[in-house]
């Protein structure tokens, strides 16, 4: 019987060698469709279109997310302008409804999620010591598909006239208000189709990243040696994996109703609109943890670095993340306390929600404990990270007050909720992600963002943020409903609304200062003759710092072998005879310098872009004209066909080992070592390294 054995060189692996593991076999064709030759090389702007490099894809995710953030932020400013005074008339009620809907949708699906995806793509393979994700082409496809969906959603703002066809039923889009009868223009179609497309992107990338983490770890990188960020990203991907199909179902039902007259939310035919609410929130609640967990991971990288201590309670940090992931599934109906569920359901969901505070609290307290007795350097990333600890707690606490079902009947759909979720999303997720930008900027681009500008921008943002959303607590408790285009003068809301509006423009200043900082720092770096920032400018801990900055295309020159948690840090530091921690090696000496040119990398490909584009065309077709959809389908099928016939690695490519390797998408991500592993410091008597076997056994 011919069973080819897969190499198991990793002592830390599962050891369940699968006797049914069947070989995947050799590549079959090199010239897909026989017409096009493959894209080659990694220079020039076209190389970005066809790249399958996880780092470039990560950068593109980040850039797109930042762009959409400006769009969503501009929308937010219009919201604030309209609400600044009673009887506001900056934009009318109709436009207002479109603006807050597309603001919510943009911020959630086109800003926070892709920004997290940017970090996941860039850092996840690096942190586990891999050369790329498991399926690089699928990764590229995820990005293009996301971008297609994002463009489709955003184009609704101007297609057919400004704000004429924008989704306007709120970001959770309750039926039957989202039906054709009540929202006859194409806005909700854009919503349904656009989210479906970005959903495909996220689902594919979830599968991809899960396999990457499970399968592509460097030697010795057992699960409990992975950085907290990797863990949080992994949990996020699992949440996506299981949550997305639920909203997929909901969106399909909505689409069927709107496009083909089905009856799922047609009350006249006996439907119960609560079905939409359940389906949406079964997705929607895990979704909020999808938004926050990556930021939690980022904070867990930044705080130890600038406290000069390992993360406190690593295993509890991981376990609480997993616990949040699990518990997040059993609380969705806390968004429906007033929807008319029976008291028993309300009671159950109320209590289950409250207890999510426990694992989240564990995280907050562990960060504080990490800082305790540390040597805290308040660099810009650290400011952001500590900002998260502080601001997220505020949002979390108001979240707990929502979970008290009887009182939520007073709070729900008021600005008290709006305050809650901006505190957790802006004060938690977004601040965390911004901190991540500052932290990893030198790794990604090879130079630092300016610290002075960074700090100034942080403080401006933080102050603006609190002035914008702090007053919303008060407004909400004073009875101001959300999603109202304006309010009466005698309701007493004018003052705090004005404060909030001013605050939002202060945030805008902070954001502009960030953009300026990027521009300014880049220019300064260029003018200085592009000095090398070094592999490890922050004296950090993760494997991503063990290679040159910016990260070379092949990530690491040699295969990495990991011996403990925070391995890179332990390579830098050892203990002297007195047991004091001393530097054992310079980062430059340990880190790979990116000089290995003999690495075979997965080759670029046209098909991810074509496939992603095809899907968006199908999307537009569903909204406007089925012929466009047919055209999209042609692209889609062609791309799939080309994709399948094309091996992941082009045997003709420059760095090839030659023919004969298989078309596993991940092939050749590990090169032959060219240099011996850098010498290790005296082994640090680190409890982690001893715990390892026990804790993960």
């Amino acid at each position, binding site marked *: 019987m*011919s069973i080819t054995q897969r*190499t198991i060189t990793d002592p830390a692996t599962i050891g*369940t060698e699968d006797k049914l*593991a069947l070989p995947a076999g*050799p590549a079959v064709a090199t010239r897909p469709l026989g017409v096009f030759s493959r894209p080659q090389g990694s220079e020039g702007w076209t190389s970005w279109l066809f790249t399958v490099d996880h780092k470039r894809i990560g950068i593109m995710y980040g850039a797109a997310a930042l762009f959409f953030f400006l769009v969503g932020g501009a929308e937010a400013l219009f919201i604030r302008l309209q609400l600044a005074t009673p009887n506001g008339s900056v934009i009318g009620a109709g436009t207002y409804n479109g603006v807050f809907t597309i603001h919510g949708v943009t911020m959630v699906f086109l800003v926070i999620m892709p920004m997290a995806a940017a970090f996941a793509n860039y850092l996840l393979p690096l942190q586990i010591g891999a050369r790329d994700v498991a399926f690089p082409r699928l990764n590229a496809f995820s990005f293009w598909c996301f971008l297609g969906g994002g463009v489709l959603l955003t184009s609704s703002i101007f297609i057919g006239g400004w704000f004429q066809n924008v989704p306007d039923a709120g970001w959770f889009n309750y039926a039957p208000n989202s039906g054709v009868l009540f929202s006859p223009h194409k806005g909700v179609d854009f919503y349904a189709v656009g989210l479906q497309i970005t959903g495909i992107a996220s689902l594919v990338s979830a599968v991809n990243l899960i396999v990457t983490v499970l399968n592509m770890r460097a030697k010795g990188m057992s699960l409990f040696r992975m950085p907290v960020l990797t863990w949080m990203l992994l949990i996020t991907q699992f949440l996506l994996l299981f949550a997305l199909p639920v909203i997929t179902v909901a969106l399909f039902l909505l689409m069927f109703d709107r496009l083909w007259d089905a009856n799922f939310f047609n009350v006249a035919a006996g*439907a119960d609109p609560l079905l939409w609410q359940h389906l949406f929130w079964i997705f929607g609640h895990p979704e909020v943890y999808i938004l926050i967990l990556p930021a939690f991971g980022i904070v867990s990288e930044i705080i130890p670095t600038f406290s000069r201590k390992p993360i406190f309670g690593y295993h509890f940090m991981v376990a609480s993340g997993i616990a949040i992931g699990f518990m997040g599934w059993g609380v969705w109906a806390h968004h429906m306390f007033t929807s008319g569920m029976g008291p028993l359901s309300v009671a159950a969901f109320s209590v289950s929600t409250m207890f999510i505070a426990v694992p989240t609290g564990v995280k907050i307290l562990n960060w504080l404990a990490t800082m305790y007795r540390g040597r805290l350097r308040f660099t810009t990333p650290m400011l952001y990270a500590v900002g998260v600890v502080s601001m997220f707690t505020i949002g979390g606490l108001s979240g707990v007050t929502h979970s008290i079902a009887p009182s939520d009947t007073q709070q729900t759909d008021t600005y008290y909720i709006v305050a809650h979720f901006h505190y957790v999303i802006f004060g938690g997720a977004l601040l965390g992600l911004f901190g991540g930008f500052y932290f990893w900027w030198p790794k990604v681009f090879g130079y630092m963002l300016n610290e002075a500008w960074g700090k100034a921008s942080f403080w401006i943002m933080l102050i603006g943020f609190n002035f914008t959303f702090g007053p919303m607590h008060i407004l909400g408790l004073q009875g101001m409903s959300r999603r109202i285009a304006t309010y009466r003068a005698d309701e007493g809301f004018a003052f705090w609304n004005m404060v909030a509006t001013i605050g939002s423009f202060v945030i805008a200043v902070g954001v502009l200062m960030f953009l300026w900082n990027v521009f300014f720092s880049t220019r300064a770096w260029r003018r200085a003759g592009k000095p090398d920032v070094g592999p490890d400018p922050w004296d950090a801990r993760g494997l991503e710092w063990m290679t040159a900055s910016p990260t070379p295309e092949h990530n690491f020159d040699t295969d990495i072998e990991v011996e403990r948690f925070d391995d890179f840090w332990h390579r830098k530091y050892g203990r002297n005879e007195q047991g004091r921690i001393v530097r054992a090696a310079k980062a430059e000496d340990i880190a790979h310098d990116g000089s290995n040119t003999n690495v075979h990398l997965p080759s670029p490909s046209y098909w991810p872009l074509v496939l992603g584009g095809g899907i968006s065309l199908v999307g537009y077709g569903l909204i406007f004209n089925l012929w466009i959809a047919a055209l999209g389908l042609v692209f889609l099928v062609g791309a799939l066909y080309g994709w399948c016939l094309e091996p992941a690695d082009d045997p003709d490519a420059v760095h090839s*080992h030659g023919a004969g390797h298989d078309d596993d998408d991940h092939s*050749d991500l590990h090169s032959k070592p060219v240099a011996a592993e850098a010498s290790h410091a005296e082994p640090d008597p680190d409890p982690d390294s001893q715990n390892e076997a026990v804790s993960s056994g």
Partner: protein
Amino acid sequence: MADVLMSEAQTTDEAHHSSTGLSNEKLAMWVFLGSECLLFGGLISTYMFNKDRIGPDDIGPSDVFDIPFTSVSSFVLLMSSLTMVFAVSAITRGDLRSNRIWLATTAALGAVFVAGQVYEFTAFYSEGLGFTTNLFGSAFYALTGFHGAHVTIGIIMLMSLYVMSLRGNLTSERAETVEIIGLYWHFVDVVWIVIFTIVYLFPQ
């Protein structure tokens, strides 16, 4: 022995290192199938929730279902799972001819099932149950339609394998590809097991 295997692997290609020792593709398929559970779960619950939400004189499940017919087509799909495992086991043995035969048989059985579904849909439609007729209609067609689409995709993949095999591109070295597509196929079958029981056999 282990040394032998390892050195052999190193000579062929170093790249096959994977932390779990499992192939990425197979792992990905299982991860994906985990996700599909929630998709079909959602559709099935939607059906269960909506099937009775029809007026007293509306056309409902008991008016249209033809259990003997559906039983036969369900049985056909069930048996296609058997032929699918035969295909996998043939290619592991290196028996490419039988592999092709079983692949084709599986695809054919799948096609019979889909044809049955098409027939069923037209029959129901002529009895007055359209997609838009009532909630039962919408939910029923959505659920079984989604399943049918999955089967159809499966058939296309099986046919592609068949063509690959004819061209000599599907050797026993690529047996895993067949296995992975088999996983998908069985999953679709398993979903039908649930649908058949819940939608058709549950007392109306």
